[in-house]
């Protein structure tokens, strides 16, 4: 039964594939070795797709302008923000849900979204995953 589908399928055999091969086309044999090679710039990874203009990525916390009002701690749904004694907040990136309520409510705009989304670390409290430790 020749259907329209078969025609489309044979056409798709030769067109560009929809799969986004980020970061590499096939999973490497050993993830740790591959990660080390990437760090040393010896293994090239395929670039990720561009992020949209309003992207909610990793937070940037400006410790200087923070006045310690604790409003962000109150609206954080996942307790990713913890108030410290020195009138600043500590941010646990691994708990963050990127809802952006803290960015909205901050009276001094101490929080800001960045475009960074590659946030994997070897452990929960990896140095990059806690802001203002």
């Amino acid at each position, binding site marked *: *039964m020749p259907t329209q589908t*078969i025609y489309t399928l044979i056409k798709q055999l030769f067109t560009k594939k929809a799969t986004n091969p980020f970061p590499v*086309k096939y999973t490497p044999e050993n993830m740790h070795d591959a990660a080390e090679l990437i760090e040393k710039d010896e293994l090239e990874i395929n670039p990720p797709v561009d992020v949209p203009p309003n992207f909610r990525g990793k937070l940037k916390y400006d410790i200087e302008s923070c006045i310690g009002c604790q409003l962000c701690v109150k609206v954080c749904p996942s307790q990713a923000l913890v108030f410290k004694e020195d009138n600043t907040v500590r941010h646990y990136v691994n708990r963050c849900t990127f809802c952006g309520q803290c960015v909205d409510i901050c009276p001094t705009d101490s929080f800001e979204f960045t475009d960074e989304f590659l946030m994997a670390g070897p452990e929960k409290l990896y140095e990059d995953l806690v802001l203002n430790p």
Partner: protein
Amino acid sequence: MNFVLDWGIKFVLVLLISLIGIFLGLLYKGFDRKITAMMQSRIGPPLRQPFRDVKKLFMKETIIPDYAVPWLFNYAPIFALLPSLVALAYLPLGPFGPLMDGYGDLILLLYLLAIPAVAMAIGGLASGSPYATVGAQRELVLMMSYELPLAIAAVTLAYNYETFSVGVISSEPVWSTVGAMGFVGFALVLATLLAVMPGELSKVPFDQAEAETELAGGLFVEYSGRNLALFYIAEAVKMIFVGALLIALFFPYQLSTLIDPWISLGGPTIPLLEMGLWAMIADVAFFLVKLLVIIYVGVSVIRVAFARFQINKASYFYWVPMTIIGLLGTLLVVLERTGL
């Protein structure tokens, strides 16, 4: 003494063919997966993925469920694999004629084709899971359905050559033995065999016995480790078997003889086989390409272009439309042969 030596060589060659069969089966499975993925606009796995899968499965633990019948459960995968390997010895592979020519014919091949399906059904029934039981029932129903068109095709060919010997049938392409009417007849028979192919290999739209979304793997739901790997290899080898059978019956062309009028492939002659080296290499390559085309048309395209049928509709498909088409083909061949 000569007798022993002769059979000794044959034994070694059968082992060699088996190994080549397994290798080719897994390689073509990789091709199938890659091409399927590309047709669906995906990148797909690398070609060696099936080899990795088998390697991984052999390393995994083999679990036998409590409700299973252990000996049946364990022997079923072996009985699914062996017939396909044995059958390769009775088939012409590229430039090489059937190794066991004269010891078996098309009827034997039809039986060898049926055994893996039965073994799978037995394995499913022996595993004691309701999913596998339903899968086994479906496998048997499907087998009963596609055997009829398959038998019709075999009988038509045998009628044409007045023999069941595969060696004789493949010695002369079927298309040149008949006139226009017979040509159409054999085209219909070929269509029937191509339709039987996905059913024979349990591929979509006839994968009801496995039906991932319905039965969670059906027959193989309880299989793991080494047993599953054997089933996996069996499926791959069966694909080669069915492909080689189709080539032997309908496209036994050799590249070296096809292009002989223009270019003469010769090269150093190999002893025993009595053929030129370059001609042999060209013919083997041509055989592999033919196999790829057959698998692409009979498995890959159909697999991606159709939805899984319900079992009663699949059965109906083989019993009524395919049988009628097959019989029509037979009728045309018979009409031409008898000169009516």
